[in-house]
């Protein structure tokens, strides 16, 4: 059954991928043409096309250029080197994970408060929602600057921005999850005179886990975005965000795109990792079968 699903989905995915690559190469020709005609004279059509696909600083780099750059900066540079994509990825990953853990804790604590305290139930949620209506690009520099002025630099400010983005899905999911037991299940606990703690740990929390995992998947992707956004205004010299920014300063489009793909790969891996834990846990709990 599982094999069938993989076989059934791999062909459509590859078809779309092929389509994207074709469109990409075709678009690279007109976008990079101007630069080629400026640099080279008297080219035949095939030579011209070939040049548009292999410029050093193209407007639109082609897939093979990006792949080459990624392979080059991932496997052929020492991972402690500033030119290594692994090094930059690791810097961003650290901030992402720190922010994700902080955000998850904050989200769960707020959700517990909202579910257990009527005053918090009425007052907190509108502010949580309001916090997400502020563009992260506006608030990120402020967080960096304020924290810089009190001497906090490096990982923590970025982690705070990640937390700011990732706590939201966790709050929303956990409030729903902790409230998912129905009245009958709660009455049943009452007939046994269960304490609020017992109600939480034996009923509400296990019931909320499917909701929590769904939120964590959204949260970890948001965390990565937070960490990258946090690297943009900080004048940071390392991290995937810094790499993208450096790329734009020096017109190194291939560098920007390879950092972009590295970030996308990182995000996908993180989401898959959470999915894996989710499947394992819920299967073990016999919620998923």
């Amino acid at each position, binding site marked *: 059954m599982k094999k069938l699903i993989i076989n059934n989905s791999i062909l459509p995915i590859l078809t779309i991928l092929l389509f994207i690559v074709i469109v990409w190469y075709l678009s690279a020709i007109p976008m990079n043409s101007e630069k080629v005609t400026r640099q080279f004279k008297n080219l035949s059509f095939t030579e011209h096309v070939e040049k548009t696909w292999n410029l050093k600083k193209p407007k639109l780099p082609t897939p093979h250029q990006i792949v080459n750059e990624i392979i080059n900066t991932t496997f052929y540079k020492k991972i402690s080197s500033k030119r290594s994509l692994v090094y930059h990825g690791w810097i961003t990953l650290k901030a992402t994970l720190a922010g994700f853990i902080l955000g998850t804790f904050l989200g769960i604590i707020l959700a517990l408060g909202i579910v257990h305290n009527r005053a918090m139930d009425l007052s907190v949620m509108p502010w949580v929602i309001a916090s997400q209506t502020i563009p992260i690009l506006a608030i990120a520099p402020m967080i960096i600057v304020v924290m810089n002025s009190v001497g906090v630099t490096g990982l923590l400010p970025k982690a705070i921005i990640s937390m700011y983005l990732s706590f939201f899905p966790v709050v929303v999911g956990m409030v729903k999850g902790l409230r998912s037991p129905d009245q*009958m*299940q709660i*009455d*049943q*606990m*009452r*007939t*046994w*005179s*269960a304490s609020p703690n*017992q109600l939480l740990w*034996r*009923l509400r929390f*296990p019931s909320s886990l499917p909701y929590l995992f769904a939120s964590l998947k959204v949260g970890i992707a948001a965390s990565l975005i937070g960490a990258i956004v946090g690297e943009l205004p900080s004048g940071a010299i390392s991290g995937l965000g810094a790499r993208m920014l450096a790329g734009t300063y020096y017109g190194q489009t291939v560098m920007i795109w390879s950092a972009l793909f590295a970030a996308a790969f990182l995000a996908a891996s993180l989401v898959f990792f959470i999915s894996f834990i989710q499947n394992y846990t819920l299967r073990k*709990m*016999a*919620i998923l*079968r």
Partner: protein
Amino acid sequence: MISVENVDLTFETNDGPVHALKEVSLEVKEGDFVSFIGPSGCGKTTLLRVIAALEIPTKGNVSVNNMPPDDARKAREYGYVFQAAGLYPWRTVSGNIKLPLEIMGYSSKEKEERTKKVIELVELKGFEKKFPWQLSGGMQQRASIARALAFDANILLMDEPFGALDEIVRDRLNGELLKLWERTGKTICFVTHSIPEAVYLSTKIVVMSPRPGRITDVIESPLPKERTLEIRDSKEFIQIAQRVREGLKSGHLDEDL
């Protein structure tokens, strides 16, 4: 022993007050099997919930084993079986039965012993390690009854426990419930909307009618304590069933239907 005296219960809703129970009085003796029967909205479940201290009456007195219901709940005087089995999907059958024992702080040795005992009582031996989804609806409800019996309360409150099951399974579980009642000597309060079920099981049938929820008839059953399914074809059985039906009808007359 349960005694209910002049109990009134009014729910405040957006459409004004709803009179769920009006001047309800009732005595349940130790070892009785009492059925509450009536159409929906007659307050039979509400009455059971009042006894279980899940609802607080607006007026009147309730005592359960000579205690206010809330104290009786804290003293673990009753086990409550809901309409849905309400087993936790992440716990096995024995894990589910242990749940109230964990909450009540029994030692692990005692948890094992009690679980073993009630699993045998409801004939679920061999299914201890199964998860709820691996059981049929009837077996799930039996596990739920075992869970209510695990802490040895002498009163069993059951709110339409077999309402969601098909008739064949229901007949079997009714028979098993009678056997269990005989073996354990518990006092059972049983809410149902099935006349044959009420007559077959009970020593006392409480007929209720809606708007406001009240008791219209209390029938002491002359049927012997030992009952087989065949008893349902006997003359006495049919007579009692007729009287229940009359009681239900008279309740409806008040509504000018």
